[in-house]
């Protein structure tokens, strides 16, 4: 497979991915330039000041020289620029401002477990059914409470997420057991799922396609097998898919760890 150069990054498929990519590219170009300049100077010093019998040492003013702080100033200015104009605003955009209200995002729960991704869509009523840990069993991996009316039309999937392209999706990320991490390289998205917490994550996929969702935080012996797919479809296809999955009764989702 061949990617365009782009520092080896996989294709970008989310709205904020280009922002992250441009940062990675900018920093790597800067690093490369710094390293080359610096390496050239270093090599020059090694050759110019190698030991020769007839050439002595030339002492500079070592005690009061602040010369070695000069690169610091340059680095500092670069970093301050990065922080103010890049890191803080983009960070807020990705991790702190969540779609809601009039944006009408696609909402879904992603509930990680050893070693599978459970996905819960609220169904046509737009309400998530209640979940209770007591109810979790082989056939009900997320402990959906079927006595709850809101649970009746919920769609529960394992290791498969469907999202419409061009629309924002709000994912409520949680986990049943240990820390997992929701990572989709093409979305440039990564967020740990922490036991006892429900963490919001948003993404706006831009390219239709199938992407790999892989756990990015060590979660046990089968960590590397904890993968799923994210299917990004055109909005029409997505709606069609959603309709086809809307159950009269809740789905029987795949058993835990069924993917290995």
């Amino acid at each position, binding site marked *: 497979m061949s990617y365009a150069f782009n520092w080896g990054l996989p294709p970008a498929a989310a709205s904020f991915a280009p922002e992250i990519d441009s940062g990675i590219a900018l920093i790597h170009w800067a690093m490369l330039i710094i390293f080359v300049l610096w390496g050239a100077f270093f090599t020059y010093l090694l050759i110019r*000041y190698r030991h020769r019998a007839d050439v002595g040492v030339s002492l500079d003013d070592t005690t009061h020289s602040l010369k070695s702080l000069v690169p610091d100033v340059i680095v500092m200015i670069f970093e301050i620029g990065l922080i103010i104009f890049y890191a803080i605003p983009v*960070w*807020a955009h990705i991790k702190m401002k969540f779609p809601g209200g009039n944006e009408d995002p696609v909402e879904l729960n992603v509930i990680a477990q050893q070693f599978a991704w459970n996905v819960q869509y609220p169904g046509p009523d737009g309400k998530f059914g209640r979940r209770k840990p007591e109810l979790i069993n082989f056939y009900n991996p997320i402990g959906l409470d079927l006595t709850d009316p809101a649970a009746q039309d919920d769609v529960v999937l394992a290791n498969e997420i469907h999202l419409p392209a061009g629309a924002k999706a709000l994912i409520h990320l949680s986990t049943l057991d240990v820390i997992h991490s929701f990572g989709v390289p093409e979305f440039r998205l*990564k*967020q740990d799922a*922490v036991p006892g917490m429900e963490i919001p994550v948003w993404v706006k996929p831009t390219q239709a396609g199938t992407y790999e969702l892989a756990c990015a935080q060590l979660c046990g012996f089968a960590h590397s097998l904890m*993968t799923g797919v994210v299917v990004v479809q055109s909005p029409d296809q997505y709606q069609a898919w959603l309709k086809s999955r809307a159950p009269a009764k809740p789905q029987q989702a795949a058993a835990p760890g069924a993917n290995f």
Partner: protein
Amino acid sequence: MSDDQHGHAPRSFWRRYVFATDHKVIGLQYFFTSWVFLLIGFTMVLLMRWELAYPGTPIPFVGRLISPLLAPGGIMTGELYNSLGAMHGTLMIFLGIVPLGFAAFGNYILPLQIGADDMAFPRINMASYWLYFVGGVLMLSSFILPGGAAQSGWTSYAPLAEFNPGQTTWLVSMVLIITSSLLGAINFLTTGINMRAPGLSLFRLPVFVWAQLVTSVLLLLAFPPLEAAAVLQLMDRVLHTSFFIPAGLVVLGTKVAASGGGSPLLWEHLFWFLGHPEVYVLLLPAMGIVCEIIAANTRKPLHGYKIIVYSMLAIGVLSFVVWAHHMFVSGMSPMLGNFFLVTTMIISVPSVAILTSMIYSLQGGSIRFSVPMLFALAFMPLFGIGGLTGLPLGLTVTDIYLHDTYYIIGHFHYVVVTGSIIALMGGVYHWFPKWFGRKMNDFWGKVHFWGSVAAMNGVFFPMFIIGLHGESRRLYDPTAQIHNLPAHYWHIVSTVSAGLLMLFQLPFIINVIHGIFWGEKTQENPWKATTLEWACPSPPPHGNFEKPPRVYHDPYGYSVPGYREDWLPQNVEWEGA
């Protein structure tokens, strides 16, 4: 009570070499023990590298020797891979580099460089070594103890670590090792601050001593939180409390019985409160060693001695407030992410200042390319790569993508291996004549150097490429994830280089053993260096100095105009200075 380190060395073998209180013997004990741990940790990673490059194939040669429970048919299981990963990290960091850089070099060199006859608390020093030894042996023996070795990474994130077998042994050993480091830190600080020779003011201390003192402060104040956290995790495992376990967890279909109410993020905070200062514990002694070697081999004073010292102090303080840049995507509040982003960017400033000072120190010098100097020179660009690649990781936004990928593995191995270990190897060549009164072989030293540097780059540079492709760390079978396949061949490059790296350690090991017994004999000051450790015989006798030294000059009195030699030892009185 107080006089057993004065006068003559104890005569009995046990008191002299095993339960020794002499800082030099303890230093060498640390030296040999930590190298053994480093080699064991390296062997572990060779097995892991095989699995990464050729997942699912039997490990050649040794695969059949491993218990079929862990490696059926010689093929590594996920459990074994995770155990090796956790143990590799723990061994290399807590049992390898810290004891080598801080305890071994510190014990031997620090009292000599300040002109003291021993450490402030010789018996606590002994206790410190034996706690470390017992903790280390216990850690290793966890492979054969019930439950096996820990499987949750060296970070032991809760609650995974709470449910995994083998973690209890890890925690007990960690408590022992931490206690050992705490005692060591108290000893080093007291010695360095209180027992300096007359005339040796703070700003006449060699950079190495400064590095050791700052390192001690980091150990002293950053380790107790991890010790407390380890005790809490131990309580969770042994007495079934739930400090790090929230309510309502269901593990593989079974409801967890713990009462709940704990916080997994709290463990991460407490762990990284140590974890980040620990990075500088690995690094500062190495920087100190590099500074010593550079000054002696450029025949001129260090450029910006004070800048280096203040930078080290600044690193010491700042390293306590940057810890959560390891946690940007951990679920920690994104607001705090901004705080740690700013502190992380600030801490790069003193590091850059130190590196720049090292480079300017070359300017105008007369560079002797001795073996230790080669290592010190290699430190600069290679540590530079490690430092630079920290930038995209320390920046919140780019870290979202690069977090926990091979990029970070490459980054910190560049810092720790081509940074710390390279410098520590240089330190071995530099101070070997002092320790044994004999030199190591130059030719084989150069073979070791060029081979190691080439192989290290071969191991770690591909990791940046793999990481930029988006491959996560800690995957025992990376090919199980389709998006990892395009960059997979780089794993093979890395694995082959790792084998070569091991091969290139053979000349080093043989050189050390050969040097101890048959090396060329040297005088007390073979490098014509100025600091106090070169003013006593090689190897120094019990009690170190024939008479207590007095200090008259700054540490790096090289090429002092008007003096008859091009080095003016700190303890030589000379009017013209």
